[in-house]
């Protein structure tokens, strides 16, 4: 019964990708990172949904869109616990989890205001030094940006 109620909150899609377990506060970061504001596909999303794990979560459903892993792993900073369902003909064909890559470029700002990436036209570049609580070391200024201080571009 509970499951049916949850289903009704965001309508089902025939083919495409469902991204679940996005922290509600980071929904728009995920939309930005994936460039969903620039594509023509049908997109539905629900936010501030109850979640045992996250407190408050968001779900995004994108019709007729299938991401390559590299593309989807870019959301790891904003939604490290996100789960993906690949839907074909209303059925979950495959489930995937987000994998935090070894490095990032762009996406977040370096925490250091004196960093060249915050002062000049230089693209941010980081090495991931911790994957659990994601923390990033700036390739340029060598300062560490932790999850708490992440600001998405």
């Amino acid at each position: 019964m509970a499951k049916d109620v949850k289903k009704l909150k965001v309508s089902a899609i025939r083919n495409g990708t469902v991204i679940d377990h996005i922290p509600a506060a980071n929904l728009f970061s995920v939309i930005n990172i994936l460039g969903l504001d620039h594509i023509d596909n049908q997109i539905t999303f629900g936010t501030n949904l109850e979640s045992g794990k996250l407190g408050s979560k968001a779900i995004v459903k994108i019709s007729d869109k299938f991401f390559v892993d590299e593309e989807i792993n870019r959301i790891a900073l904003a939604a490290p616990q996100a789960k993906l369902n690949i839907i074909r003909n209303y059925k979950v064909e495959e489930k995937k989890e987000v994998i935090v890559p070894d490095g990032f470029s762009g996406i977040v700002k370096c925490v250091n205001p004196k960093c060249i990436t915050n002062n000049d036209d230089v693209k941010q570049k980081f090495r991931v030094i911790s994957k659990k609580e994601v923390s990033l070391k700036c390739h340029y200024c060598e300062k560490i940006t932790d999850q708490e201080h992440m600001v998405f571009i």
Partner: protein
Amino acid sequence: MKNRSLISINDYSKEEILQVLDLAGDFEQNPSRDILNGKVIATLFFEPSTRTRLSFESAVNRLGGKIIGFSDSSSSSATKGETLKDTIKTVSNYSDLIVMRHPIEGSARYASEVSTVPIVNAGDGANQHPTQTLLDLYSIRKTQGKLENLNLFIVGDLKYGRTVHSLLMAMAHFNATFYFISPKELKIPTEYKMYLDQHNLKYSEHSDFKDIIGEADIIYMTRVQKERFSDPIDYEKTKNAYVLKNSMLENSRSNMKVLHPLPRVNEISTDVDDSEKAYYFTQALNGVYTRQAIISLILGLDN
């Protein structure tokens, strides 16, 4: 090291660090050699640092090289709005190696990515100053006869002091034991303690060092700046605990030497200067030999 930029002390392995120190020793024996004949070295100082610039220029002159460049950005095209990228791209056409000092952190790494010639970082903001670290290591080895298993006292501003952070990372190769001595506002950041833990290195933190000075092989003093304190009363209370006086050296080891990256303000009393344990002025001289070694290794002119 040939043709490679030196941006951070972490760019060099332990073996490469030792190679620099060995060659610096050769230059100390025989400082003037004409191996840079026909080479042009650019020194681009986007912020003034007379001491560091003169040390580099002395190194280049002793090797017979020519120098071009500027000593602060007000005399450079950077004032006219030229980007760092354009300055570096242009100057790399005119020179065989660029020595660069810049107030923005990470600028040296970025410069090395757009330059066609190697870059030597002579300080990028509070980030890195690797040639300072190499001359510190040279000075430690020279005075102690070794780098392994030493007790290193690091005193003063351990939070913001860039020379402290790089020295710590470099000395981690040599099983040093660290004694961190600072006011509570300027303690060594957690990330460096984590680094030492990961490498199984011993360290302890102290607010004073008068009673433990007998343990030290090296006392590395740094400036404590008043403006780092949120409460001026805290500064007044602690400031005298971090001034090294000659009388304090009484119970120190006979091999103990006092180092300081200079310039000092008042953290080493001038009555220490005449002590045979004072080494900071010789340390500055060692910077010339060390920079000669770095430049010749990068240009592949080391034999």
